């Protein structure tokens, strides 16, 4: 087994052990962090690996979340098929977004994703009778059951979150060392050269958008089903900025980086909220400082200095 694989499996085992060690408050946080980290990992596929900067990832999270949530609310689906519906919705939606948005590059791509995301947010508000708009709705405890497991129980919830996280983490380890993953990196580094090596860069970028959107959507669906609350704030602009922040901090183009960034930002916000309501202040300062002084992020620096093998 390679060092990279050992390291990431080790991280998963540590996370599993932490559930038994940590106080309830923190293990509850960690469950939330793992789901948000999946969202950030999805973001990293596009931004960190394929070099596509999206400013509207909340749309993918929201499509997954509402895909699952509305299946429960409107069609009385059970948790498992609702989760599946959320994922299918995410795949189709990100395919559509990719087909349109990839016609643009650079700044235009950023703004197109921002605009699409804003449209999704507004659509959620517009269809208030179905979505209950800003207020959102709750998925009742009775529905949040899968194969006899109660997803609202903190321990079950923790392990469900860990399961999703582990699948995505190991999937990413595999992807970035696969041929496709290497081509994505090549596109990030020099798209024209990659094309002139015979790679269909457009198809690879589309794949990155769909994978990224699907992972983010899976995170959204899981968030809704595990924590029970669904609301339009998950589709708003600040929620699109969060994964960018997590990834920038943790290290773009590293597999574990998004998780590291999510942990740091989550607790930074948690700590700052004890003395100010302005919890986005920390995010703002972090964004400015990271772009100015630390573009590689935490794990990027770790890789550069100590662990070249880190994928």
């Amino acid at each position: 087994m390679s060092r990279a694989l050992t390291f990431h499996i080790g991280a998963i085992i540590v996370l599993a052990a932490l559930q038994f060690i940590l106080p309830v408050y923190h293990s509850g946080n960690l469950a939330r962090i793992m789901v948000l980290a999946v969202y950030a990992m999805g973001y990293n596929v596009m931004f960190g690996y394929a070099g596509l900067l999206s400013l509207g990832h909340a749309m993918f999270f929201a499509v997954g979340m509402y895909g699952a949530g509305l299946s429960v609310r409107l069609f009385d689906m059970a948790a498992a098929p609702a989760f599946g519906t959320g994922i299918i919705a995410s795949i189709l939606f990100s395919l559509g977004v990719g087909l349109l948005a990839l016609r643009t590059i650079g700044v235009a791509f950023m703004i197109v994703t921002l605009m699409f995301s804003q449209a999704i947010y507004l659509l959620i508000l517009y269809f208030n009778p179905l979505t209950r708009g800003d207020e959102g709705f709750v998925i009742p405890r009775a529905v949040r059951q899968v194969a006899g497991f109660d997803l609202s129980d903190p321990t079950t919830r923790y392990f469900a979150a860990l399961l999703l996280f582990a699948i995505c983490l190991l999937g990413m380890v595999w992807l970035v060392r696969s041929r496709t993953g290497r081509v994505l990196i090549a596109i990030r580094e020099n798209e024209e050269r990659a094309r002139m090596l015979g790679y269909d860069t457009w198809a690879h970028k589309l794949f990155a958008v769909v994978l990224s959107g699907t992972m983010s959507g899976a995170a959204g669906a899981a968030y809704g089903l595990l924590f029970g609350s669904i609301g339009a704030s998950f589709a708003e602009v600040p929620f699109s900025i969060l994964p960018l922040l997590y990834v920038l901090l943790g290290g773009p183009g590293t597999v574990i980086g998004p998780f590291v960034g999510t942990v740091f930002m989550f607790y930074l916000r948690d700590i700052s909220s004890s003395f100010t309501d302005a919890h986005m202040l920390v995010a703002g300062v972090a964004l400015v400082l990271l772009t100015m002084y630390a573009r590689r992020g935490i794990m990027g620096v770790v890789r550069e200095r100590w662990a070249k093998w880190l994928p």
Partner: protein
Amino acid sequence: MAAVTTLLSTRGLSRHFGGLRAVENVDFDLPEGEIRALIGPNGAGKTTFVSMLCGRIPPSSGQIIFGGRDVTALPAHKRVQMGIAYTFQITSVFSALSVRENVELAVQRIYRASPAALRDESDALLGRVGLEGRSDQIAGDLAYGHQRLLEIAMGLGQNPRLLILDEPTQGLSDGEVQSFIRLIHEVARETTVLLIEHNIDVVMALAQKITVMNFGAIIAEGTPEEIRANEAVQAAYLGG
């Protein structure tokens, strides 16, 4: 001698940028196995011409036939997959990746093998162009001449039927130019080579035939001796 098949030909190939006729109505034939040099004064349309061959620039009109198939409408990556490899005039490597990763990216498309085999293959190629022992360096840290060699390794790594080299010896030292000439002689046993080159010594040492372009059109074509004696060519260079 067996009958030679034509690997690449163009018919009436033109490219206009606004009012500028960068390439005008070019008929060009390249037999399989040949080393062909494409020369001409600056701005003669050479780079535009080969950019159309490999699909980086769409032609305004005309036809490109490669391996008996009309590829005019094919996107660049499809043509590369058919065996047209292109090395950029302005060095274009993945400068943040290692030298080996650069070559692996070129090799992995055609060479389905284990990571270890891919690695060995890439290191062997780097040895062939004279970059042995530099596999783990970051490509962007290489000296300019070495980046040119890396480009050539990436071209060879694709095992192409046609290797297009756009001013490959620019920035190479004299010693490096000599090894480049040896390398291309060796490569030409398996591959057809189309070479844009300003260094006339390199052209004379390598080319079996030379095509001369000026003002977007072919003004002469022939063996090195014929070209040397051609008045139109001399006029283009001296008077142009």
